[in-house]
């Protein structure tokens, strides 16, 4: 009987490859060096900038896209009448000037001359009206049309009872006005959302699903390619109204890319800028001396914490809510993800908090927490571990979110004051459904991102009586406070900044004292870029604003490429030579 010859060399090779692989992974305790030198170069045109998102982009139609990823790309394709400057202050963009009537009911925008859409057509006042009407049309699946409910005629138009939005008037070829039914201090902020961006005439007067693929606006870049789950590619709009800008020829944004893949690509120059680093990777880069000056924390515009349902026991007792707010050790929570989690006891994030509210907020004080439990009639004796609330309390969190980790820590912290917490983990849709249903969830993780950089966005949609519904309530704590409702309504129509500051200070005090939320932290990302990327720093309001970045192409090493056998034969050979004896 013949035997099949053994191939010991093949076995040895296999073992060698496996060993090298495991050793490579095990030794990966540092990050690759920055690619190329950092040189001070003036803005120059040319080059391709690449980045990536973990998520997909839902749509690029200005009227419908509202998620974070879409907003970043929309910032490249569309310009609005108004935007935010480098300091996060409102500033005209396509408007040359903005005039507000003394009663605060009329906003008149005078448009810049010489603004061209990507299709070459000049921007006029009628384009603004057409675009606004398209967004607010009853057939357009705009996620937030009610932001504009104060425009005169909004209700009739949005419900299909009127052929036009009467509150938006074309005054002349380059002047358009918006008439409001009531003063609205947030109006310019909602006008700064990409949703209100003027779009090309090819978009039509009503929404069509095709426009997302051929999005056309007056922004610095025009859309070349948009493939769901793959990439968005834009190229410089040569007719852009800011002479000489933008600088980069083309920007490619890869979609649905895993954070570890983003890191791998970033370190070999397939990505030039990165934001979605994993926790460990972020820490490695932050600690690396070679990367100092090439990364920065973004300003968080979000607030997270724990909501307590004021209609359910034991949180219908304000002393119990206050006890939770005092028991929550925010600094300990921040240690779970150092840097990314910034502890806070205030609803309004630092970036947009008026000066008047900066010293207000909840704080950790275990003795006060125990005292509040005593006042609630639920005194807890830490020595004998007796007393407290006798039943377990359900804490609802989204599976795999930081709210889950926060819940685990909260479980330990609340045990010190006699509250036993049982963590219930669900998917995001279930979380939304359950927290929005009345008398259902006693407590859980909660967070809110700024719709626009204005304090009202952290109170009105989530803590007012108006936000309470039997189903789909946005006020997850079902907290109702007449004073808070009244002062927020006043703040909405008050244009005096000092007075608004005082009103929001009082709002913060009410949240601190009544504790519908135990406010806990803001979440922020660390952004990193290669040394040859210039002109980019995290914007205080606009996320990942790379519109006017430029590349030092002389300092940029040759790019490896997505398919390395085409351009990387040298390295491939070297790698083979390294592995094979």
């Amino acid at each position, binding site marked *: *009987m*013949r*035997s*099949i010859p*053994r191939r010991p060399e093949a076995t040895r090779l296999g073992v060698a*490859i496996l060993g090298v*692989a495991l050793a*490579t*992974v095990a030794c990966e305790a540092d990050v690759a060096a920055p690619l190329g030198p950092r040189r001070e170069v003036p803005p120059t045109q040319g080059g391709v900038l690449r980045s990536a998102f973990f998520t*997909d982009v*839902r*749509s690029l139609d200005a009227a419908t896209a*509202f*998620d974070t990823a879409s907003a970043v790309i929309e910032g490249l394709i569309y310009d609005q009448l108004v935007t935010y400057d480098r300091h996060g202050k409102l500033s005209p963009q396509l408007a040359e000037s903005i005039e507000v009537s003394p009663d605060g009911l009329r906003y008149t925008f005078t448009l810049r001359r010489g603004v061209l859409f990507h299709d070459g057509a000049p921007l006029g006042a009628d384009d603004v009206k057409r675009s606004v009407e398209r967004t607010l049309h009853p*057939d357009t*699946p*705009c*996620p*937030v*049309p*009610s932001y504009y409910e104060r425009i005169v005629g909004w209700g009739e138009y949005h419900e299909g009872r009127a052929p036009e939005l009467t509150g938006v008037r074309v005054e002349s070829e380059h002047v358009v006005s918006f008439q409001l039914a009531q003063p609205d201090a947030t109006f310019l902020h909602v006008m700064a959302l990409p949703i209100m961006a003027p779009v090309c005439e090819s978009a039509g007067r009503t929404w*069509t*699903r095709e426009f997302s693929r051929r999005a056309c606006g007056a922004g610095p870049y025009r859309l070349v390619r948009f493939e*769901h*789950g*793959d990439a968005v590619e834009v190229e410089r709009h040569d007719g852009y109204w800011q002479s000489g800008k933008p600088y980069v020829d083309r920007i490619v944004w*890869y979609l*649905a*890319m*895993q954070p570890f*893949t983003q890191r*791998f*690509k970033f370190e*070999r120059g*397939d990505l030039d800028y990165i934001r979605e680093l994993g926790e460990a990777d972020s820490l490695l880069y932050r600690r690396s001396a070679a990367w100092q000056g090439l990364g920065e924390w973004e300003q968080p515009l979000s607030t997270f914490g724990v909501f307590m349902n004021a209609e359910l026991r034991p949180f219908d007792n304000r002393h119990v809510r206050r006890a939770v707010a005092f028991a929550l050790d925010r600094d300990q929570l921040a240690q779970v993800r150092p840097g990314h989690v910034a502890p806070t006891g205030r609803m309004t994030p630092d970036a947009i908090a008026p000066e008047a509210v900066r010293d207000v907020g909840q704080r950790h004080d275990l003795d006060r927490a125990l005292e509040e439990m005593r006042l609630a009639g639920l005194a807890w004796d830490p020595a004998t571990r007796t007393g407290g609330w006798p039943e377990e309390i359900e804490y609802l969190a989204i599976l795999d979110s930081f709210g889950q980790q926060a819940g685990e820590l909260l479980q330990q912290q609340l045990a010190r004051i006699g509250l036993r917490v049982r963590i219930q983990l669900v*998917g*995001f*849709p*279930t979380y*939304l*459904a*359950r927290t929005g*249903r009345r008398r259902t969830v006693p407590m859980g993780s909660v967070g*809110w*991102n700024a*719709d626009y950089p204005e304090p009202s966005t952290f109170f009105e*949609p989530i803590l007012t009586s108006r936000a309470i519904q039997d189903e*789909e309530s*946005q006020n997850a704590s079902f907290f109702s406070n007449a004073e808070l409702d009244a002062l927020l309504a006043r703040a909405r129509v008050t244009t005096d900044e000092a007075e608004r500051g005082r009103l929001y200070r009082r709002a913060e005090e009410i949240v601190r004292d009544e504790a519908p939320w135990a406010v806990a932290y803001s979440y922020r990302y660390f952004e990193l870029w290669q040394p040859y990327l210039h002109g980019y720093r995290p914007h205080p309001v606009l996320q990942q604003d790379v519109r006017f970045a430029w590349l030092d192409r002389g300092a940029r090493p040759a790019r*490896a490429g*997505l*398919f*390395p*056998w085409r351009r*990387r034969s040298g*390295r*491939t050979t070297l*790698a*083979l030579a390294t*592995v094979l004896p």
Partner: protein
Amino acid sequence: MSWLLRRLAVSAFTVWAVVTATFVVFNVLPEDPARVIAGPQARPADVARIREQLGLDRPLHVRYGRFFGGLISLRPPADPATDSAVRIGGVGLDLGVSYLRRRPVTELLGKALPPTLLLGVLALIVQVVVGGVAGCLAAARRNGLLDWGTVALTLIGISAPTFLTGLLLQHFFARTLGWFPLDGYGATWGERLHAAALPAATLGLFGAAYYTRLVRDEMLVLLRQDWVRTAWAKGLPRWRVLVRHALRNALMPLVTVVGLELGGLVGGAIVTEKIFRWPGIGSLSVDAIVERDGPVVFGVVLLLASTVVAANFLVDLAYAVLDPRVRRR
């Protein structure tokens, strides 16, 4: 002929039952797709408007009737600009429009299917070839070093989760050696085959480990059979005895498993597709489920159920080819 008709009827019923069950479960869940679409920031009035636009405010039976009623159409579209059906000849298949992406589901599936089929076929080749060869060799060297090594490796292969295998392959062969792209699909067929190597290996190695065990065990039984002993006694070459007499018979259970796994390969490559950013059905379906994009979920389920049913049908036919006794019956 009656057997064929009966099989077709059972197949159609199976597909209908699976899609109906998915439809019912999906719609009775206490979750609101309109809320997910609008986002947590959207005001209740805006959510209600989206619900109305999508027809989610209508009763379940109306939605069910609309879904199945509009599935097959023989008439030309009233408005070609808004038509979401794919037409083959005069027959249109309409799975509706994705809630989130606002694209016809048939278009999304049409784009996701070729990458999935490419990946599935390559993975199948990996697992059948590696599993068949390794299983055959291990059986031929029973209780030898090769056999023990193969058994140990298959245990590792079966135990290692796909995400670990995928990450290791990506890290070593794409990142460190640079032999393959880290992720992506590619624009040309050459690029696609190159890009598919690591995801196919990731997906295929798990199955290969399983197939190796299957073939090995089957071969060990067959090698003790009389006709194999006769073959040895006739002095046939070793490879011929192993391949022609034993392996061919050992392939019968393998074919059964391959048929059953085909559907799994189409829809079950979720983790692999995510790691390698492969734009297939797996990625599409997991996104749709997470975001409660009903029309896409129903479309994927319809496709997968049809694939599994069709694969089983093909397995029955394959039996007839591989085993003459089945053909005679």
